[in-house]
């Protein structure tokens, strides 16, 4: 084990270097540019054996990744925001063909208005594409997640997005522990796809037209493969813990014992909230935190189990659904809790759009308000826009 100082982008590029993929096809975009730039340095310096394809757009970059993955390669790329939006069409093609491509992504808001800072609207907009989604709370987790996600992806034949928060994590230098190259190689193992196009002894046909008679069956089989991801993830996360000492459950509970209310959120804000939880717990407040780390596939039973014990839950969403009813995490979590006989009251705080700073005081306020909701049983405002001028 080595301790090094790295930004989120450097950490993800470093994990990619240790993975040493066969092909990386990419197009740079702020704030994920560095991932590609640093990785291309590794290529130029001969530290990896990767074929690096500098594409002319993200659409082309992911298309090249699809081609390389069909050919049988271990394939990765990196993007953010508009880049992921431009990849949108190809996301479905990669997932529908069961290609285990991994994207090192930086969560950045989508235009308009144009902005380069953090929110989760890019990946939330792709949550139905059939890609696993992991939201990292810090650089350490981003590094670890890239390695874990690659192995899960290749085991299940499902692609994965590992993301960090723009600038807050991507450009923040942090202290992190990294594995040795050989340890990573041993952990991920050699990639031996069962079927691949360059298997010239056994030629195959990829991407045929699939009409009314079979399309639905193939989609159903894709959904089935996706439903098996969580079990595989849990197993691989435990294997990774044995190797690194760090364990990342799909849904993380933090000081939830005896708590009556909780915040349910993702990314760097969850990390910040842990500090708030410690402070408020010291004051005797019965509060806890549940962190959403894996958002696709949706860890339904884990979320149910984690949230069912509270009187009230405040979701903090870093994007909005434009449904005039809060963010995606809120809407889906409400759906999950609907089945419970005794379900917590649930409210939503849409916050931090376009990189708006979330302060300690903001999180304290959410705990204060949700505590009041639990006490009175009354919700005066199901959705609050937190930290925006012109609203309370």
């Amino acid at each position: 084990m080595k301790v090094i100082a790295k930004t989120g982008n450097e950490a993800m590029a470093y994990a990619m270097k240790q993975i040493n993929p066969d092909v990386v096809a990419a197009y740079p975009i702020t704030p994920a540019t560095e991932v590609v730039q640093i990785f291309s340095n590794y290529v130029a310096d001969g530290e990896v054996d990767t074929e690096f394809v500098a594409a002319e757009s993200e659409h082309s970059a992911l298309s090249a990744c699809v081609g390389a993955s069909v050919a049988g390669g271990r394939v990765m790329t990196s993007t953010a925001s508009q880049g992921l939006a431009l990849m949108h069409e190809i996301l479905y093609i990669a997932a529908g063909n069961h290609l285990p491509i991994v994207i090192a992504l930086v969560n950045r808001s989508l235009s308009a208005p144009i902005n380069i800072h953090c929110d989760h609207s890019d990946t939330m907009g792709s949550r139905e594409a059939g890609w696993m989604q992991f939201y990292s709370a810090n650089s350490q987790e981003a590094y670890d997640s890239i390695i874990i996600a690659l192995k899960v992806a290749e085991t299940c034949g499902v692609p994965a997005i590992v993301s960090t928060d723009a600038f807050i994590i991507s450009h923040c230098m942090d202290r992190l522990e990294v594995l040795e190259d050989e340890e990573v190689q041993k952990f991920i193992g050699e990639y031996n796809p069962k079927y691949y196009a360059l298997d010239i002894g056994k030629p195959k046909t990829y991407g045929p037209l699939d009409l009314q008679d079979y399309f639905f069956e193939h989609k159903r089989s894709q959904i089935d493969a996706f439903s098996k991801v969580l079990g595989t993830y849990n197993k691989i996360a435990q294997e990774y813990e044995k190797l690194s000492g760090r364990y990342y459950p799909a849904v993380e509970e933090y000081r939830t014992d005896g708590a009556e209310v909780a915040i349910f959120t993702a990314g760097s804000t969850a990390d910040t909230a842990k500090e708030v939880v410690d402070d408020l717990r010291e004051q005797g407040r019965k509060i806890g935190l549940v962190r959403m780390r894996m958002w696709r596939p949706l860890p339904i039973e884990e979320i149910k189990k984690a949230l069912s014990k509270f009187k009230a839950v405040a979701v903090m969403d870093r994007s909005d659904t434009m449904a005039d009813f809060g963010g995606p995490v809120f809407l889906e979590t409400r759906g999950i809790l609907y089945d419970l006989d005794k379900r917590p009251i649930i409210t939503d705080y849409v916050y931090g759009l376009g990189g708006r700073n979330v302060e300690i005081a903001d999180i304290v306020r959410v705990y204060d308000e949700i505590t009041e909701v639990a006490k009175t049983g009354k919700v005066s405002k199901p959705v609050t826009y937190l930290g925006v001028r012109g609203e309370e």
Partner: protein
Amino acid sequence: MKDVHVECQRLMDWQELAKGCLIQEAATSLNFKTGDWRSMRPVWSEDKCIQCLFCWITCPDSAIKVKDGKVTGIDYEFCKGCGICAQICPEKASAIEMIREEK
């Protein structure tokens, strides 16, 4: 896991399918004869043909048979009768004539 085969009789359930609509053989279009779609039939005359191979290049269904660099005929199992070969054939040669298909 079986793959979808154009000639399979029974429609399979999703559990039986290979992932991602992968077909575990190549050139399966050879199993799919499209020749019976034809309403006009191209007829090639060897004596008029100047062997320019324009028809071979332009045929969208690769239905012009060529051997040792020379046109030898038309593959009626796949020719859909579009007439592009007759259109492209140089006027002074006019080696391909389109006639009504009679079954």
